[in-house]
């Protein structure tokens, strides 16, 4: 189980890292973008496969975790949170949902189409609320974290 989790984390990190390169992230920050995405995915993966939460709850918690991690990196590394959260969101975005919705529509399986379409919409809404929760945490807490970290290094 540990090995599987590690592989999932590693692959998700590499995937996010590659996308951060496509979006021209600063070179030194690409690895942190990767770690952010890896964490987001691993939270989602554990909640979905081991705790057996529904996809929607898993996406909600994973996205808020993602937002918190990217904001922590933002204060630690002194860059805007945007550059960590934008590549990091990709593993959670319902790309599969878009594909299957289109597929079922074309193959005229209307029940499955409605089901997948609704699920995609629900995951998107879960991501919305996840980000809102993640960003609702006051900045002062993160500023404290930043101070803690920068005192250590200096």
């Amino acid at each position, binding site marked *: 189980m540990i090995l599987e989790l590690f592989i999932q984390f590693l692959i998700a990190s590499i995937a996010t890292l590659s996308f951060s390169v496509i979006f021209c992230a600063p070179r030194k920050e690409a690895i942190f973008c990767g770690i952010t995405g890896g964490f987001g995915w691993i939270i989602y993966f554990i909640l979905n496969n081991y705790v057996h939460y529904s996809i929607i709850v898993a996406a909600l918690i994973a996205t808020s975790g993602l937002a918190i991690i990217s904001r922590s990196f933002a204060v630690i590394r002194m860059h805007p949170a945007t550059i960590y959260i934008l590549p990091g*969101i990709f593993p959670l975005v319902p790309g599969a949902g*878009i594909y299957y919705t289109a597929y079922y529509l074309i193959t005229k399986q209307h029940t499955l189409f409605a089901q997948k379409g609704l699920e995609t919409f629900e995951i998107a809404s879960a991501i919305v609320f996840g980000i809102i929760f993640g960003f609702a945490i006051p900045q002062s807490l993160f500023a404290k974290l930043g101070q803690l970290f920068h005192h250590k290094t200096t």
Partner: protein
Amino acid sequence: MTTTKEILTLTAEIGDAMLRNGAEIYRVEDSLVRILKAYNIENFDIYVLSNGIFASANEGLDDSCSIIRHTPLGDVNLRKISALNQLTRDICCKHCDVKTAWKRLDECLNSPSPDKRLLCFFCGLGCSCFTYLFGGTILDSIMAFVAGIFLEIFLLYCAHQKLSRFTKNVFASIVAMTLSLLPLLFGLKISYDKIVIGVIMPLVPGITFTTSIRDYYNGDYLSGTIHLIDALLTALCIAAGVGIVISIYQSINGGVPVL
């Protein structure tokens, strides 16, 4: 002594650059206000939309001026956002006068875009990793790697030709779907749906969607709606592209469902 006009132009240019490279509205507005304050302009007003900037300073005085900028939605460039953020920070700490700021802005805007081969490689790598994450086998991932490289080549070509976002997304999605179906022709045992999911990942509007949510969260409803519509249309384009290829493929195979 720098005039108000010069400072306001600099501010608008910085905001313009931030918007073009995909920063969220709140960050742009906040940065512009801070810059103007740092240069001791007291009386100003700024309104930023996701595709425009309106700014005026010292209204009612002799050196009053105002600026309007139109900024079309562009591609995301995280490095430029980061560099501009640093520039804003330095200006606010008064480390940077107007002349240096102009110079640094020019440097930032003219910074070279990354190597195209590197982009293709990483696009392929990203696609193959996503294929694996969503349940593909190793063989699927390898196919997705090849498909991802060709997709990025196509996207770069589109950027070169300056196609509209709409056309670009539909055609890129068609290309992605076709590339994923190709290995079937050679009789390889692949689950092509997993490959497609991986390969359409670079097209999926994750970034616009996130920006839209953050705009809503900060109370910029109009900009949030513009980004949201952009995200929805992109998703629709992807679905349309995938749908076109699947229906053609089905009709060739005599109406047999492919899955």
